[in-house]
């Protein structure tokens, strides 16, 4: 009886948490289909706001900027992050630990600090604009890539790379043909993570973008200051859905990888005990 009550209470607790987390988003999504400018009255179902959204040139431009920015920054961060992870992995234990702490700090650091710091830095060297935003996004994306590649690198049997070199492969060929396929799961999930983070970011973008460049998040912020338009509900809903999908992809890739790795290592272990007959 007591057990049942406990069970019930814990379920209620979870339900409450989910409720508080997701109700506001749910309301936003509902409002984006509401055929009324009011925030409290349901005026029937409509797709007008979405239509308005796609007709708006300013929004289209911001969308393109956001996507190009996310893709380019994620790609470059992945290249830098993977090379970085390889280098850090090869360091001595002490330096490895120091490097990983320094990698962690930017992820935990308040966005506003990172944003202002990058802005102060950039204005000395380059005009603020798309270039500076791209650099800023690459900067905060690199740690995510390192974090998602590193565990895989650690689990990997490094001697397969040595085996490739031994059989006549040069360093590059050995990396692309042997190492990369083993790391692909981590590299992909790192890329998507970086992509998501880039789409998601507001604060750092806001400080480094200068005039004239807008991503979706900074544009929404600008619009809302002028007054809340229902188009913004629709836009926010779309962003939410895109990010949700990306996160599902990241998790799926990660889980599949995990499973593959586990399967391989289990097989390795059981093989060592297995009797072998000719």
């Amino acid at each position, binding site marked *: 009886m007591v057990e049942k009550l406990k069970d019930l209470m814990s379920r209620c607790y979870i339900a409450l948490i989910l409720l508080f987390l997701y109700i506001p988003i749910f309301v936003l999504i509902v409002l984006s289909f509401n055929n009324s400018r009011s925030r409290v009255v349901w005026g029937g179902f409509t797709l007008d706001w979405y239509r308005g959204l796609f007709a708006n040139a300013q929004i289209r431009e911001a969308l393109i900027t956001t996507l190009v920015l996310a893709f380019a920054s994620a790609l470059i961060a992945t290249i830098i992050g993977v090379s970085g992870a390889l280098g850090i992995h090869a360091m*001595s234990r002490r330096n490895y630990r120091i490097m990983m702490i320094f990698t962690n700090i930017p992820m935990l650091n308040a966005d506003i600090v990172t944003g202002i710091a990058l802005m102060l830095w950039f204005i000395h060297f380059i005009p603020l604009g798309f270039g500076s935003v791209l650099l800023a996004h690459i900067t905060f994306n690199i740690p995510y890539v390192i974090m998602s590649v590193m565990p895989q690198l650690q689990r990997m049997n490094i001697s397969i790379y040595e085996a490739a070199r031994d*059989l006549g492969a040069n360093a590059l060929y050995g990396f692309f043909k042997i190492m990369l396929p083993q790391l692909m799961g981590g590299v992909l999930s790192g890329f998507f993570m970086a992509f998501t983070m880039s789409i998601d970011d507001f604060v750092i973008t806001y400080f480094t973008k200068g005039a004239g460049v807008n991503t979706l998040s900074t544009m929404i912020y600008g619009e809302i200051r002028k007054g809340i338009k229902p188009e913004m509900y629709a836009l926010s809903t779309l962003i939410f859905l895109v990010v949700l999908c990306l996160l599902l992809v990241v998790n799926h890739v990660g889980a599949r990888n995990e499973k593959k790795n586990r399967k391989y290592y289990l097989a390795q272990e059981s093989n060592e005990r297995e009797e*072998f007959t000719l």
Partner: protein
Amino acid sequence: MQDIILELDSVSKSFDGKKILNNFSLGINRNEFITLLGPSGCGKSTTLRIIGGFERPDEGRVLFDGRDITGLSPDKRNVNTVFQKYSLFPHMNVEENIAFGLQLKKKSREYIRDKVRYALKLVNMEGYEKRSPTSLSGGQQQRVAIARAIVNEPQVLLLDEPLGALDLKLRQGMQRELIKIKKEVGITFVYVTHDQEEALTMSDRIIVMNKGIIQQIGSSKSIYDEPQNAFVADFIGESNIIDGIMRRDCLVEIQGAKIPCVDVGFGKDELVDVVIRPEDLVLVEEEEGYLKGMVISTIFKGAYYEIKVRVGEYEWMVQSVNPAPVGTMKGLTILPDNIQIMHKPHSADAEVSKEND
């Protein structure tokens, strides 16, 4: 015999300030099965990695056919390695694994197909071409790893404890097969192991190493029968190692008993180390033995009994086909041939080996 294919010339290597190899020199003959034997951390794997090109020595040179290859990367050496942990490429099947090196050498498709088939036949794995390495047992994976290495026709094959992860039965089978493969392909094998039995079974020549220094080089028989110092005697097989005094040529005094031996050339009354293998000691009635002591334990080991006899402060280890009751007094005798006399270590190098006893 003096056809040296690979030579290490005064090689030294340190990791984190710790000296792993110290002024190490070694010549390896063509077509030889040579084994580097020693406890873990003795520098045997590092030696192999230096030959393979995975580590660069701090000092010294590596010569291949008289050519200096010290700075050459692994892919440019005519040497292939079989790694301890198989190290097959998990995303490729058996055939692709074996063909990897040949494809890099831009061999024709037919050539590769024939070579892969030949290599699989050599390691008794015909018909496994399309299997994934993850679906193979440890022994099978190691066979594929061997096939993958020898298919490139290296002049020297390096094997880094290749049988370490296998169970005893499987290991013994693979030892026989390795010897067979060695005969068939006729190349130099450099084998690293800490398993003395494995080394004694397979090698033409054994190099016993400890702390980065060569303790003894010789055939299996000479290493076992005539260990040159206490470390080798202790590491290879079981031994009774005890202090003795050379009273004159062919007479050694152990624990007060004068026992005839065959060793000559020691100084009169020189202090020596005496090595006697447990299987060479014979248990007899108390009054017939050189040494007399009490049986303090008898353990059945299958093919023999392992009996401990205490004489004075020392416990002698005896292997005998007949048991001896605990608590009885017994005598110990030994044939002169079976006593191995060694100089006490006097140099610093030899002293090093004593520490590990």
